[in-house]
């Protein structure tokens, strides 16, 4: 039995996981093929999961808290830029 209620045949998402743009006829053809092809559906599903996992790891590692000295250095550079001074004026070293 094949499941037809899967969302994988959504062409926008399929295209996104492919990483390139398909012509409308190609999308129709692929969508039609996918309806009757569980292995291809599984493959696309696994590619979608992979992409989703990449998105999730984007927030896992965080930098150490910003130390006050660095914050001050950045703020000085920002204020110097705002006041129109030369960029090097903000550098201390």
């Amino acid at each position, binding site marked *: 039995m094949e499941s037809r209620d899967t969302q994988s045949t959504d062409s926008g998402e399929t295209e996104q*996981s*492919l*990483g*390139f*743009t398909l012509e409308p006829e190609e999308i129709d053809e692929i969508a039609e093929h996918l309806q009757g092809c569980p*292995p*291809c559906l*599984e*493959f696309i*599903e*696994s*590619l979608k*999961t*992979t*992409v989703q*996992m*990449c*998105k*999730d*790891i*984007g*927030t*896992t*590692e*965080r*930098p*150490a808290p*910003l130390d006050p000295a*660095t*914050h001050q*250095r*950045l*703020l000085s*550079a*920002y204020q*110097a*830029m*705002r006041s129109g001074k030369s*960029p090097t004026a*903000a*550098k201390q070293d």
Partner: protein
Amino acid sequence: MLLAEALMRGDLGAFDEFVEVFRSKIFHYSLMTCGHREDAEEVSQDTLLKVFENFRQLQDPRNVRAWVFRIAKNACLLKRRKSVFAPKAELSLEDFLPQLEESQGTLRMQIADWSMVPDNQFLQSQLKEILTTAIRELPEIYRSVLLLRDVEELSTEETAQILDVSLDVVKTRLHRARLAIRQKLDRHLLEASKSLSR
């Protein structure tokens, strides 16, 4: 982008928000690129310093993400000597499509069972480690595209701008990079299910 405009107007709240948001983004991108926390901390500081010093060079506030990441990418390149880089190589598509296996006289694709992945926390954390390693081991030209597009979720246009390549090149490399890491995860899942059924 509103944040960049507020920053230009001298809004100190925007300054802190900008530092907060971009410092973690650049840190993560650099960590995945250089492989060392200290390098990544340095890259994120150096990048922000350059960003503030040169903020007036940003012509269009809507380009702020691409502009910042471009500076970060160059800062990462300077750390290159210290970093753990995978050999420069092209990835071939054929290497990453599922193997065909013969069963009952017909050829079928060999794919692991991914259905339990979304709901299994333990499996997810295992896969995340494998994923992180797989991304780091990608040849640089693929890794940079995958990091910017899928991990940092920048657009194809922004990624092309940052890396100085065409939209088509971004799309092709992204596709291959995704296939390559999908395969690493797939192999792990296949191994895991084999050891379970033993």
